[in-house]
């Protein structure tokens, strides 16, 4: 079920209504049923895979807590291997197979891969990571194992964040799901504001940018260099608006039930460096990799060569997490390389970014935005060759006169979106509007309502991160 659908518009108030109408002891069952229903709106049979993940990690958590010695590690490894195997099977089987065939051909062999005709269960990358974080925390002794299967299932299945995050930790989300929440006006107000803003960002921004971006990426050779640059930059905003919009709706939907889930974005394009960018972009994923891969590898408490290796490995795996394609690996690798270069440069020149507005900071922000935009090309392009064509056309088509048409309404909307990022900087729409009086607040809501209802994209595009 998509957030921007009539189905969800009816689904959400019914679930919220029942949530508060039902006695506390039945709420876990409501969330479980509602989340299953939400997920099964995509491909019903794939709920069984989630059930498998839930059962494996529920049993693993209890077992790890009960046992001592090497058996604890055994069950942790079992949980991780099971989760990664499920993910690998559905997501990476064909990628692995195709590359194996290439290796065989390179050495003169003959291996004909048979492609697996399976759809990637939606949100699988998110579920497995979220569930693995639970067993790892139980193993580390930082989380008590959950005895109630229903509560644990809800932690994995919780519908606002089940298909595209944020990837929550059990101590935050799991515990909140068990609490008795009373209906509170503040929660409803907060929830609706966040949902409204999320819909604005997704429908009015991301869905309107998509056709222009698609035009350029489908045939870059026919467009002028400026058009290609605009197309690249538009994709930067499209993917941000798409994912940020989804995450905001997720936070808002959870808020209606009195549940706080983490913010996944903090105005990432106002970052001055790649390092800062990854503290502001898809925060739940970057913190997951930091806590469960980077730090266990030694983090920065190792020698420089090993540290560089750790950084690159984390970014490579992050790239691969996003998709089973070399373009995603290149995307991750480039982020890792730029990160390392920036760290070395700031180390050599003893540079520290100063806070606040300045011309220099603005230049850093623009520099970082450009770098991120160029790296996004590998994320968006369907193949390395298409990414290459984008860059070739960018530099070669200076004299080409064919330009993309950008409606003035789209330019205006994008301007509003960029302004909202500048204004909101490190804040959310609900906390920002709370400081103003009734007339201004409602003027903002009225404008957002107009944008959502009157200016949403007419082609309904699925959330980009659903494919991961």
């Amino acid at each position: 079920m998509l957030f921007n659908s009539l189905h969800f518009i009816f689904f959400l108030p019914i679930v919220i209504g029942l949530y508060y109408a039902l006695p506390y002891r039945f709420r876990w069952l409501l969330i479980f049923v509602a989340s299953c229903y939400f997920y099964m709106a995509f491909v019903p049979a794939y709920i069984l895979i989630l059930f498998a993940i839930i059962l494996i990690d529920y049993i693993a958590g209890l077992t790890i807590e009960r046992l001592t010695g090497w058996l604890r590690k055994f069950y942790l490894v079992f949980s991780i291997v099971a989760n990664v195997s499920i993910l690998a099977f559905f997501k990476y089987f064909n990628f692995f197979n195709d590359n194996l065939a290439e290796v065989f051909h390179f050495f003169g062999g003959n291996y004909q891969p048979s492609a697996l005709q399976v759809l990637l269960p939606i949100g699988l990358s998110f579920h497995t990571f979220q569930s693995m974080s639970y067993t790892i925390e139980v193993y580390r002794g930082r989380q008590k194992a959950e005895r109630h299967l229903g509560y644990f299932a809800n932690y994995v299945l919780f519908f606002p964040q089940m298909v595209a995050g944020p990837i929550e930790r059990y101590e935050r989300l799991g515990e909140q799901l068990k609490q008795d929440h009373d209906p509170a006006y503040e929660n409803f107000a907060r929830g609706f504001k966040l949902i409204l803003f999320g819909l604005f960002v997704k429908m009015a921004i991301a869905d309107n940018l998509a056709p222009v971006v698609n035009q350029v990426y489908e045939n870059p050779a026919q467009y002028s260099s400026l058009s290609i640059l605009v197309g690249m930059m538009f994709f930067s905003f499209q993917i941000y608006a798409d994912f940020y919009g989804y995450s905001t709706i997720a936070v808002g939907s959870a808020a209606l039930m009195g549940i706080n889930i983490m913010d996944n974005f903090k105005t990432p394009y106002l970052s001055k460096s790649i390092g800062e960018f990854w503290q502001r972009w898809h925060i739940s994923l970057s913190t997951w990799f930091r806590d469960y891969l980077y730090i266990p590898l030694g983090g920065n408490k190792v020698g420089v060569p090993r540290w560089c290796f750790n950084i690159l490995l984390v970014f490579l795996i992050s790239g691969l997490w996003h998709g089973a394609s070399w373009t995603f690996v290149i995307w991750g690798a480039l982020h890792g390389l730029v990160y390392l270069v920036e760290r070395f440069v700031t180390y050599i020149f003893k540079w520290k970014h100063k806070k606040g507005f300045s011309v220099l900071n603005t230049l850093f922000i623009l520099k970082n935005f450009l770098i991120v935009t160029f790296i996004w090309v590998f994320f968006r392009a369907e193949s390395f060759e298409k990414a290459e064509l984008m860059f070739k056309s960018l530099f070669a088509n200076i004299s080409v006169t064919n330009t993309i048409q950008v409606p003035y309404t789209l330019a205006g909307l994008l301007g509003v979106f960029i302004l909202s990022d500048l204004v909101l900087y490190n804040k959310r729409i609900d906390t920002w509007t709370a400081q103003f009086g009734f007339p201004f607040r409602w003027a903002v809501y009225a404008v957002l309502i107009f944008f959502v209802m009157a200016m949403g994209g007419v082609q309904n595009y699925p959330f980009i991160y659903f494919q991961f």
Partner: protein
Amino acid sequence: MFRTAVLKIILLAGVIVAADQIYRFTLYPKDLYAESTLYTYVQEGQHEADVLYFAESSNGTFSETDSLKNPISDFTSWHYPSLTFKAIEHGAYHAGIFKTLVRTIEEGSRVKVLVITMNLRSFGADWINSDLETHLQKTTVLYQPGLPILNRLLLSLNVFDRTPNAERRERVIHHWKTDTLRFPYPFPYATLDDWNIAMSLEGPAKGWDKAKTELSCHFIKNYAFQIDTLTNPRIKDFDEIAEMAKEKNIKIIFNLLAENVQDADLLVGKDLVFIMRQNRDLLVNYYAAKGIKVVDNLDAISSEYFLDKTWPSEHYSQPGRQAIAKNVAQALQEYFPGKYRDAW
């Protein structure tokens, strides 16, 4: 909390109404033109024209060798120089879409007669479940009854028939395999699917090349069905159009288009021609009983005037279009007595 929530909901409703007013005067006309172009033509036409001619591509498709490339609606209008005709035309449109447009004609408009194209193939499962249907349904969202801004939101949320193409195809195949063909004489094939399979084998057995066999199969798939007035959705669409025209005090003519009956006979045989004419008779008689004229062009045009040779269609060269136009014009005499003129 309850009182605050109710007040806020009322305020929200007020915001939406205000937003709707702003939308109507700013972006709505542009959106209508972009997404529902034919609706804008109907709104213009209902105040400018005496006759609105609703059609799909049969109206305006022409041959490069035609000396006159005018559409059927133009040729028809030449017989009535004192009247204004306006064509409301779009490829692949059908009665299901025409009815949504007819609904928007105001009572008391200038329009006196609606001519609605009746394409025999549009009654078949293949057209009813066409892949194009999603796009066609999308064009109707913005002018549905209700607040324009709500319709615009529904458009963004994709609230229209978006049945996946695979499911549409399954429906078509289901009909082909299960709808029984009934003949008043012994006929070897119970369903369209049986007949199609037999034809695909018969063609090569007769020494036909692949193209000719395929064309024969296309004819079967497009015409080998029998209209049931109780269940066929197109009948329901035309019935609604007739009803709406009556309520708006507008006369109506259904223009049953010419089909390539000669080629149907040559390629498939008299059994297919029988079904085509049986469907024609049903439509003419069914609507005659309701007091509505159906202009019968089924056999009006010989094969040489059909433009497409690899697919059964209703695209005609100039003589074909003029022949249909003349038939329609003669039917219109009932509603415009004394105004008919010979045009060529």
